């Protein structure tokens, strides 16, 4: 490994070494808040490094990209880690979390996500994916007194382990067929004339099964609502954004390099996308639990992203990346708000808890409404521009029917987002006031809000950036 490679790895190293440092510090000096702040600072440092330092190489040891694309996602996931830590401050303190461990895990998870997003090799992909998956196993069940947390942890763990098996076996089969771990080259084994095409195909099916689990595509989505519900709100935020976004970021690289075998994959992804959007939407209709609702909503959104991925090209990939950013910002904010409302007794999740709160906590409920409108794809929010980009790419690539299904799903999904808003603003009886929220929580949510609106009104800068890094 050359010095240049090391330099290119600098942001990841900051995250990983920072993680270790925080962990050690926590062992000696178990003060939750400073450790989390410290973690956030490290994450920001990594983000700035990735943003500002342009390394001399474009690839690290044939595993990861260190070009604009890779750095872009390093910035994004580091920022996500920082925001997650900010929204976790009081949450962790009140539940007597080990600050060092918690911060370390999140930093390490961010490193994993960054690696996954940047991977160009199945080895890198596997490592990155497993790095944050292992972290999430722990984080989901981090709150030891919460039985639901443990149940969620268990479900994610077993499902995740099985999925890891599928993933690894898929990779192994693809390797068998192609003799390389480099994604772009391995994919040629899917080609019509390839020698071991059936093996590669079986590998691809295994691989997609695992990916389907990670990004909750129907029918691999069933764990999602349970895990979101049981996980601590900030972790659920991380889970719904980073762990899915990073997979899609890797898929963009993979799908973009795919030159053969599309004829078989396209209908499959088409069907996955359609069924994901529709099933997710209808499942969310009657939810009475906000976190579960957001879980199903994330299922639907992954369906949309899949449309963009399917469309491909500059338009499609650009749309996917933009959508991931918009979705990340919004979902992080939404889970941040839930975290900021939480009390020592637990998190408010049921609609009952939010009844009429729009006037008790106008700023955060109003912000929540903005996030929900963004998820619903209503302008002037980031979600709208994201959805616009997806539909634009879809229509441009001729996926009209899929776009129409997307529209149908959007329309139905409006209803359940509206239900939350109705509960908050249009109820006659008001629930008990929730926690007033702390500065760090409000700051994190406020940043997400700003980003949501900014991307909704002036998305030009980000769109241009994405065009450049793709």
């Amino acid at each position, binding site marked *: 490994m050359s010095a240049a490679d090391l330099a290119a790895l600098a942001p990841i190293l900051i995250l990983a070494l920072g993680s270790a440092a925080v962990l050690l510090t926590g062992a000696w000096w178990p003060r939750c808040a400073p450790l989390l702040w410290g973690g956030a600072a490290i994450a920001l440092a990594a983000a700035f490094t990735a943003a500002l330092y342009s390394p001399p190489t474009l690839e690290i040891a044939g595993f990861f990209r260190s070009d604009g694309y890779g750095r872009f996602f390093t910035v994004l996931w580091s920022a996500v880690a920082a925001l997650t830590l900010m929204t976790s401050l009081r949450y962790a303190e009140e539940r007597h979390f080990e600050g060092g461990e918690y911060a370390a895990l999140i930093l390490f998870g961010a490193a994993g996500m960054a690696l996954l997003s940047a991977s160009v090799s199945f*080895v890198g992909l*596997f*490592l990155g994916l*497993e790095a944050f998956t*292992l972290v999430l*196993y*722990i984080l989901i*069940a981090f709150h*030891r007194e919460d*039985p*639901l947390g*443990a*149940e*969620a*942890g*268990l*479900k994610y*763990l*077993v499902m995740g*382990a*099985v999925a*890891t*098996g*599928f993933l*690894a*076996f898929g*990779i*192994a*089969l693809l*390797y*068998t067929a192609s*003799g*390389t*771990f480099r994604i772009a080259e391995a994919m040629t084994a899917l080609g019509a004339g390839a020698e071991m095409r059936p*093996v590669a195909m079986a590998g691809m099916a295994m691989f997609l099964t695992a990916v389907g689990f990670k990004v909750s595509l129907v029918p691999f989505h069933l764990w999602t*609502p*349970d895990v979101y*519900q*049981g996980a601590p709100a900030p972790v659920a935020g991380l889970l719904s954004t980073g762990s899915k976004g990073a997979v899609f970021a890797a898929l963009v690289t993979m799908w973009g390099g795919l030159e053969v075998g599309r004829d078989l994959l396209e209908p499959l992804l088409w069907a996955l996308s359609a069924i994901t959007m529709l099933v997710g939407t209808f499942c969310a209709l009657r*939810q009475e639990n906000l976190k*579960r609702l957001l879980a199903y909503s994330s299922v639907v959104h992954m369906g949309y992203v899949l449309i963009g991925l399917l469309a491909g090209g500059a338009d499609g990939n650009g749309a996917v990346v933009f959508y991931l950013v918009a979705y990340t910002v919004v979902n992080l904010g939404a889970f941040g708000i839930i975290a900021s409302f939480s009390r020592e007794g637990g998190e408010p999740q049921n609609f009952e808890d939010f009844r009429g709160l729009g006037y008790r906590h106008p700023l955060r409920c109003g912000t929540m409404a903005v996030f929900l409108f963004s998820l619903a794809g209503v302008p002037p929010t980031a979600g709208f521009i994201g959805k616009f980009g997806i539909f634009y790419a879809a229509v441009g690539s001729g996926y009209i029917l899929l776009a129409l299904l997307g529209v149908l799903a959007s329309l139905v999904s409006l209803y359940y987002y509206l239900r939350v808003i109705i509960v908050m603003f249009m109820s006659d009886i008001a629930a008990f006031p929730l926690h007033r929220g702390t500065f760090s929580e409000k700051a994190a949510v406020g940043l997400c809000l700003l980003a949501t609106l900014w991307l909704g009104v002036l998305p030009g800068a980000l769109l241009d950036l994405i065009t450049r890094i793709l």
Partner: protein
Amino acid sequence: MIVPMSHILAISATMFLMGFACVLAQRNLIMVLIGVEIMLNAVGLTLVGASALWEQVDGQIFVIFLMAMTSAEVSISLALVVYLNRRKHTLEADAFSEMKG
């Protein structure tokens, strides 16, 4: 190569399926985790075989990564299993179904 790749694939696929069948059929968490281990071992076997086929070390390196990862996973899962057992005094996977819908 001494053994044809197809044989290796057949064996590892069988192992993988057996592991998955174990995961699906067994209600006990420990047994489920053992099933996962069998699946992962099938993966290792494939990788080693493929590595031999292509006369590369990449596959073998991957196996090492896999083993490291597996051990981490096992330690986490055992910790969780112990914790769960202490809470509910059962290791039935489906006993943990408070959240649904």
